[in-house]
């Protein structure tokens, strides 16, 4: 069968036959690195064109339709344009920090791609603290934004960065708590085991109402964490022109831009893995025939389908809602989401202890 795990195994076997184990490991690491860089770029391109098409669809217009068939090559053209554009560094800027910030954003996004299970048995790094790793590394993103805002020597950038700092740090709490709800059910932090625990049903169904509440909290919190509208206060185009990346241009801007989209993909992938069963097909317990049909759909399609559905939902948010104000944003987190997710976690813990979930 042509699946990702099959291809990966073939490559691994061929390498093991040809080289000694040390060299095999080194070559595999290089291959994985190249794959991550490629994935970073490809995901960015796909998500940018997807966003433009989705927004066009919501806004009763056509969207890009000139470059390539139905405008699908538009983001390639944009990339070429951004690459040949001069990446200015403002005179008053802190040059080192200014230039390092977008690279950090990129590195964080790439690191986060590692523990995601893209298909059955196809995962770069199935470490035993997978979920913890994701929430740790994703909080590094705020550092690059703060660096960019501070080093730009621009008050708009500084305001955007400070907003972003307050926002990401706050919303990480409820994102973490809603992730914990699922961890309480599974009792494991490893991605592959979390997915395996959903063989009989996804957690959003198995976990009753607490899982549903956790899912909604998670969706709101990650929308805020990735600085997407209606929580895009860090950029806040109509208030702060472009927020923390006001002074960036060319490829340095593109790295922020791509990192934002890849981050959206990652949080949606995590959401799909925790709540919607990752690559697990949709099963209804007693319908064997139906379950077999579902099993025929490749696992990678299940994973990407769920992830892109969540991405679509987040894009839908962006093109529908107005932006919140900074104090409303923090009120929403500290006065509503955080208490709700804490109580939710308690209820989920009780359920897990009593074994009330399926």
């Amino acid at each position, binding site marked *: 069968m042509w699946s990702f795990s099959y291809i990966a195994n073939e490559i691994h076997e061929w390498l093991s036959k040809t080289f000694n184990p040390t060299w095999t490991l080194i070559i595999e690491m290089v291959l994985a690195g190249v794959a991550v860089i490629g994935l970073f770029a490809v995901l960015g391109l796909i998500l940018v064109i997807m966003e433009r098409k989705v927004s066009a669809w919501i806004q009763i217009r056509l969207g890009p339709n000139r470059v390539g068939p139905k405008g699908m090559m538009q983001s390639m053209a944009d990339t070429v344009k951004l690459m040949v554009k001069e990446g200015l560094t403002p005179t008053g800027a802190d040059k080192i920090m200014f230039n390092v910030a977008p690279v950090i954003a990129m590195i964080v996004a790439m690191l986060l791609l590692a523990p995601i299970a893209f298909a059955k048995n196809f995962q770069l790094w199935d470490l035993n603290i997978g979920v913890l790793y994701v929430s740790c590394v994703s909080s590094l993103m705020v550092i690059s934004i703060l660096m960019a805002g501070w080093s730009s020597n621009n*008050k708009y950038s500084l305001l955007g960065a400070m907003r972003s700092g307050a926002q990401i740090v706050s919303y990480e709490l409820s994102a973490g708590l809603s992730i914990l709800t699922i961890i309480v059910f599974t009792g494991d932090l490893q991605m592959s085991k979390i997915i395996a625990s959903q063989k009989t049903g996804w957690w959003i169904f198995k976990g009753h109402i607490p899982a549903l509440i956790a899912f909604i909290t998670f969706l709101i919190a990650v929308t805020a964490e990735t600085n997407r509208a209606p929580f895009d206060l860090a950029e806040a*185009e109509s208030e702060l022109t472009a927020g923390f990346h006001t002074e960036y241009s060319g490829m340095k801007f593109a790295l922020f831009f791509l990192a934002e989209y890849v981050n959206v993909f990652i949080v949606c992938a995590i959401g799909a893995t925790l709540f919607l069963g990752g690559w697990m097909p949709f099963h209804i317990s007693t319908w064997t025939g139906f379950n077999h049909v579902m099993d025929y759909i490749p696992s990678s399609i299940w994973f990407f389908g769920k992830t892109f559905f969540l991405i679509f939902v987040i894009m839908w948010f962006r093109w529908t809602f107005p*932006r*919140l104000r900074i104090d409303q944003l923090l009120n929403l987190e500290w006065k509503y989401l955080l208490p709700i997710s804490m109580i939710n976690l308690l209820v989920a813990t009780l359920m897990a202890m009593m074994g009330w979930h399926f």
Partner: protein
Amino acid sequence: MYKEPEILSNYALGSNSGVSLGEGDFQINFGPQHPATHGVLHLVITLNGETIKKVEPHLGYIHRSIEKMCESLTYRQFIYVTSRMDYLSAHINNHACALAVEKGLQVEVPARAQVIRVLMDELTRIASHELWWGAMAMDLGAFTPFFHAFRERESINDIMEETCGARLTMNYMVPGGVMHDIHPNFQKRVKDFLQLYKRKIHEYDELVTGNIIFQNRMKGIGYLSAEDAVSYGCSGPAARGSGVSSDIRKIYPYEIYDKLEFDEVLETAGDSFARYMVRIKEMHQSIRIIEQLIDNIPEGDFQAKTKNVLKLPKGDFYTRVETARGELGVYIVSEGGTTPYRIKFRSPGFSNLSVLDHMARGSKIGDLVAMMGTLDLVIPDIDR
């Protein structure tokens, strides 16, 4: 490490701000190139963190000395320049000037021309409010309403294009009536527009008005009391949102407005949401006026007979009309020649902008953008 660029800080501090910079305060230049100012408005904002301490508008970036230019143009010509003041209510600007000239000439405008003028004014008002609605939602970070508003606005522009030959600066009003008769399709097109509008208007409420985020951003924000609205000289929806009756169409009726049935929209809350609702309801009132008139355009001349070269008698003439933004006054001083001796426009945008500092103090920078949105500032109207 944070170093203030010298030129900017001198510029901002050198101005007579009236508020001294305390610990942790800083000033930012909001504009003249900024996505939220919808033009070249320059605000120097004194901030403490995100909280506004002072807003100081700096004007003149799009000053074209229209008033001075008008002094060297004849009474037929100067009307066309005024389309460029408040380009969103070009018809209404032209209307005000035509009324002033007619007042001087003592010309009676034919009934048909009066109805056509009112129809055009109200269509312009709807088009202007549509654009305001989209742009204000965009200021709040919602992009989609802009495109929904433009769908309806586009059909008004098509009507304008067919009858006036232009979509934005129509130059349709002339002293004594309108430039030429309406297009044969005009009535059908307007009826089509009314249908489209009624079919789509619920989207406005679903997308924006009823949205919880939107209401939280608007309610209780940018409070303007009735006293302040009067003392700052606010007019139009900005004043009516505070409960100040200021509709020139009702108070000093011109053309046939006194024979029409429509309500002056008044809201008493005085906040951003009240100003928003005034404009939304005004669109409905404009629709009402159009519905009354569209089937009752009287036959007859579309233009009164006037001399080729217009000469106003010695004296001064003042007329006022209600534009989409408020009261527009036209003051002409004539020495008896073919050109005005002096012209002064009382533009609504200028007075409405003056209230911004008063409203914005103490609120957040995100709210400033929302307040500017609800004041519906058109920068060429402020600078002229």
